[in-house]
């Protein structure tokens, strides 16, 4: 009887330790799942097409300044519109990259953050993530105009109000792929690699 009890205790211990390990592995898997993202800003089939003029949407940022998204810029500056949300974890990891792009690309590019939802939550998000350097717009009309379904989503609009590139951006590579796509004249990096593949085949 004693031997059975000891073996029982031992087995339960092993079962519980194994379950804790299993839990840790599934958690780790979840973290990996979040980190692994498709390469290249992903093009969504719906919404405004690259090369088309974007609708002019008048908006106000959190500081009360007015902007007209899509209006031609007299100074010849392009606009990068980035849709983010306080509840989206990937957005938070993208913010430092956006901050560095703001300084690195300041000669030709304005970056605007756009979101939707509770104003107080947005204000505390701006405060906690130190987003004072960006105009921050809260507008549901903007997200609908650009057919944003997944975040973080970016749209690059040139100085004439023409959409140059758009897609989901999860990393620095995705963001730079948008700039690269504009430089090369392709709407998305996928269109670019597609044409390269055709070129190689020929």
């Amino acid at each position, binding site marked *: 009887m004693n031997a059975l009890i000891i073996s*029982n205790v031992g087995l339960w211990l092993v079962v*519980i330790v194994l379950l804790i390990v299993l*839990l840790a592995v*599934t958690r780790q*898997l979840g973290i990996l799942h979040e980190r692994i993202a498709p390469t290249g800003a992903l093009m969504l089939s719906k919404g405004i097409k690259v090369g088309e003029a974007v609708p002019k949407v008048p908006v106000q940022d959190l500081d009360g300044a007015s902007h007209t998204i899509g209006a031609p810029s007299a100074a010849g500056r392009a606009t990068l519109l980035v849709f983010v949300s306080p*509840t*989206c974890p990937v957005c938070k990891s993208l913010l430092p990259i956006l901050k560095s792009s703001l300084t690195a690309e300041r000669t030709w590019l304005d970056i605007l953050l756009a979101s939707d*939802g509770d104003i107080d939550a947005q204000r505390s998000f701006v405060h906690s993530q130190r987003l004072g350097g960006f105009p921050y717009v809260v507008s549901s009309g903007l997200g609908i105009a650009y057919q944003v*379904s997944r*975040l973080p989503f970016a749209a690059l609009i040139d100085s004439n109000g023409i959409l140059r590139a758009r897609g989901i951006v999860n990393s620095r590579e995705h963001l730079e792929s948008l700039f690269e796509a504009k430089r090369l004249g392709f709407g998305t990096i996928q269109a670019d690699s597609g044409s390269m593949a055709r070129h190689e085949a020929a």
Partner: protein
Amino acid sequence: MLDPALGYIVVLSLVVLLGAAALHKLQAPNDFVQVLAAYRLLPGCVAPIAAQGLPLVELATGFALLLPGSRRVACIAAAGLLTIYGCAMAVNIGRGRRDIDCGCRLVSDRRPIATWMVIRNACLATAALSILLPWASRPLAAVDALTIAAGALSAALLYVSIDALCSLSVRSPDIIRNQ
């Protein structure tokens, strides 16, 4: 015939599940009202009352499960709650509203509803009803306490692991509807 040790494992696991569910809801009452309203099953004026009442019902059910006298009623109530939640999700999946928050963990993690949650609830409800089977009468030994405690702990850990694993297979939309 259900062995009492097995029976107590199921009872204890359900108590932990109901307690945790009630605790999540009580910690974020405003979020739960929103979640409940998003299911679009209750009229607008009833949802806030139901949001306050449900965690209390869950707590009461959990407590009643612990008492031998009220156990049979409580396990039917627990199975009923699980079935109602499962049906609410199934109805919204049927409506095509797969992007609403399931309300499983509220503040800590927002997740859309999915078919596997309906299956999970059906399995849990069946487990709750298994307590209604006649229990074998045998004296419980000291080693049974170990079986019951370790069994319930294992069940809870397994539940959390399966939950985390199933959530991975669902590509969660980053925007979850609030209305």
